[in-house]
């Protein structure tokens, strides 16, 4: 999981390494299976959303900043502006050029106009975080990060010119898949297990999403009642003398608790739920890759069978295509297994972070409330001792 590091000047690989070591390690136990060292030499960030209004359309662009020491890049730093379309283009390109690898998902492309405000702060913020995550995952990937399309995406000023082929390529891709049509004989056990895991995992995430939403709903109704409850104390205070301050104190505490809960709910809605949903998309991407792998294997098995039959008939040697297919399958399996491992470890980190974040939010909420009530007690008890001393005087 890439972290956002602010580098003021182009850093050498070793100093980057040093900085990395100082961070508290979330990834202590998992090492990149491809690289032999822990050096990370490509850092990307997505931020600074801006609205653009033109005659044809209105859209948002994001700033994509890159810092790198890789020689594949001409400059150590880049700063470009990209819109969602561009990210989509990149993803398609990656899928096409690296069919055996798992490509991280993008946030949902289409939003129902009228239901969701595409230009609201929350929506833009949430989408930006997801785009940032996408790019970081790609930049972290030992193979994908060297893809020339990524390079272009990060460095080229005006991407539009390169996008022309995007549509055609996409069509071509799907045609390629449909034309496959081979039937798979025997899927290796480990890939079956992966598929089952993904199904169950996806289901559990869906459940967690529903629970989280339900909690938000219950909290919202609780908040409504709590606000009303606070006002009752305020209005009672107006008819009391001695009790006025204590009652107003309670009203104020209740109000503080309302604010704290509102913050927690908003945070859950903005930070927790989107990440959860994005993982469901990630699972779908992974399932797609598994399907592609199955296809590749099926194709190989099909061709092999055909070749064997022909060989029996007229003793021709094993055609090259069959061997190529076999290579393809073996490559795919190896890539997939490697990707699976890193996906699993990333998943572990992501969920550790997500769930501890949830716990922290709840702790934070209770701490705020506790502080408010404690200061009220101090206030009330001070008054008590004040009264007592004035009585004895």
């Amino acid at each position, binding site marked *: 999981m890439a972290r956002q590091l602010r580098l003021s000047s182009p850093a050498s690989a070793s100093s980057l390494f040093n900085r990395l070591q100082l961070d508290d390690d979330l990834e202590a136990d998992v090492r990149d299976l491809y690289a032999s060292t822990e050096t990370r030499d490509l850092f990307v960030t997505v931020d600074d959303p801006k609205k653009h209004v033109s005659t044809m359309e209105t859209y948002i662009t994001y700033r994509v900043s890159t810092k790198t020491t890789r020689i594949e890049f001409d400059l150590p730093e880049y700063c470009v502006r990209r819109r969602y379309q561009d990210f989509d283009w990149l993803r398609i390109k990656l899928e096409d050029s690296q069919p055996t690898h798992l490509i991280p998902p993008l946030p949902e492309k289409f939003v129902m106009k009228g239901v969701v405000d595409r230009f609201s702060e929350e929506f833009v913020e949430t989408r930006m975080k997801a785009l940032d995550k996408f790019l970081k995952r790609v930049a972290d990937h030992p193979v994908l990060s060297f893809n020339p399309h990524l390079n272009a995406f990060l460095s080229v000023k005006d991407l539009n010119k390169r996008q022309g082929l995007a549509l055609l390529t996409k069509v071509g891709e799907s045609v390629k898949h449909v034309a496959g049509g081979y039937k798979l004989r025997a899927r290796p056990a480990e890939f079956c297990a992966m598929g089952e895991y993904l199904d*169950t995992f996806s289901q559990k995430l869906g459940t967690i999403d529903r629970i989280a939403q*339900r909690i938000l709903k219950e909290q919202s109704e*609780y908040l409504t*009642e709590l606000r009303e409850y606070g006002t009752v104390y305020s*209005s009672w205070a107006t*008819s009391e003398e001695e009790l006025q301050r204590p009652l107003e104190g309670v009203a104020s505490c209740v109000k503080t608790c309302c604010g704290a809960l509102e913050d927690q709910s908003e945070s859950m809605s903005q930070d927790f739920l989107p990440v959860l949903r994005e993982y469901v998309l990630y699972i779908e991407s992974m399932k797609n890759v598994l399907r592609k792998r199955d296809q590749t294997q099926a194709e190989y098995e099909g061709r092999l069978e055909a070749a064997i039959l022909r060989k029996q008939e007229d003793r021709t040697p094993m055609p090259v295509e069959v061997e190529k297919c076999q290579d393809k399958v073996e490559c795919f399996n190896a890539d997939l297994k490697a990707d699976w491992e890193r996906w699993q470890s990333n998943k572990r980190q992501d*969920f550790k972070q997500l769930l501890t974040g949830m716990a922290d939010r709840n702790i934070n909420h*209770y701490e705020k409330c506790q502080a408010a009530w404690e200061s009220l007690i101090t206030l009330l*008890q001070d008054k008590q001792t004040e009264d007592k001393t004035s009585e004895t005087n």
Partner: protein
Amino acid sequence: MAEDGKEESVATDDESDHTAADGTGSLNNTMVEEGSTLLRRMEICVAEAEKRSGKNAVNMQETFTVYLIETRPMDAVVEGRNPAPDALWRRYSEFELLRNYLIVTYPYIVVPPLPEKRAEFVWHKLSADNMDPDFVERRRVGLENFLLRVASHPVLSNDQILYHFLTEEHGWKEVVYETGFQAKADSRLRALSATFRVRNPDKRFMEMKHYSDELQSHTSQLLRARARVADRLYGVYKVHGNYGRVFSEWSAIEKEMGDGLQSAGHHMDAYAASIDDILEEEEHYADQMKEYLFYAEALRAVCRKHELTQFELEMASQDLISKKQQREELATGIVRTFSFKGMTNKLFGQEAPEQREARLKLLEELIAEGEETVKEKTLECEEHVEKAWVDMQRFKEQKDKDLREALINYAVMQISMCKKGIQVWGNAKECFLKM
């Protein structure tokens, strides 16, 4: 809450400076001070509750709860002796009878209320059943609180009927009825619910009556709102229990994450379960508020009684004035106001002097009576105002003190709830970090 006479040897009771109405010579304690409250001499508690069955007034079988009242002489407690307490059983209706007697007999006192007869302001999980053990327990506490308040009251604590309530199990009811308070109760009820216009009520009492309405309104609003909040909070906590289940299921397909998830799930279950105790404890706060909701009614009754006495005084004064006017008319022959007698006199001639004499004599008697009545009513009114004002001040101080304490306790409860929440989520976080 009422002064706790159970543990301490001497209840701190500065109201004992107010004089008690009658002596309590029947008690054998030689240390009785004039005006000291019953609670100083006697330890009282409502120790238990039990279910009983019996035949009621219409010979039908019914189940009801009885409460055990235990008393011990305070000097024995102070001296360290531990005699077995005297005890008797009473049911709720007998407490009601006692209270009704006190209300009628001491109309200038803000009489402490009983705990509610039926469970009100209930939020969905809480039972509205009178036989529910939690309800019975809270009622036991409420009844004890009632007795402690009455027994520590500078005026009420000296009452003989109260003393008998605490010490004589059988025949108490008959003694109460023999006081004839029932008749007074009926007429009082009628009078208090009637509408009448008072010309010159004491302004302070009118303000106090207005305040009692405010107090009643606010406490009932508070209780309703609190019940709704409790309902919702219950929902929030309980839904978290679902996390427990899904984490457990999820942990089954995970290798390294499994243990952490599983343990975190247990903490989510604990979190969901914790709300039951939290809300149960909050019921005590609700009970404290309810006491003052009912107290507001008692306060209002005292104000209404003032209105009544003032009204009767005004009526009597009015009556006296009109009789004196009549006398003047008879004596001087000048008719100021219209009367049939005046008319018939004009039409048929004046009556005979003997008749006039007789009527004048009667009027004089009536006027004398009327003047006595006015004196009585004036005295009654003044006495009521004086005594009631004293007790209302006492009540005000008690209310301020009690409610402030109640609010502090509420804050303490909230803090405890926050601490529990922090602990549970802290534990869950530990588990997540270990994933």
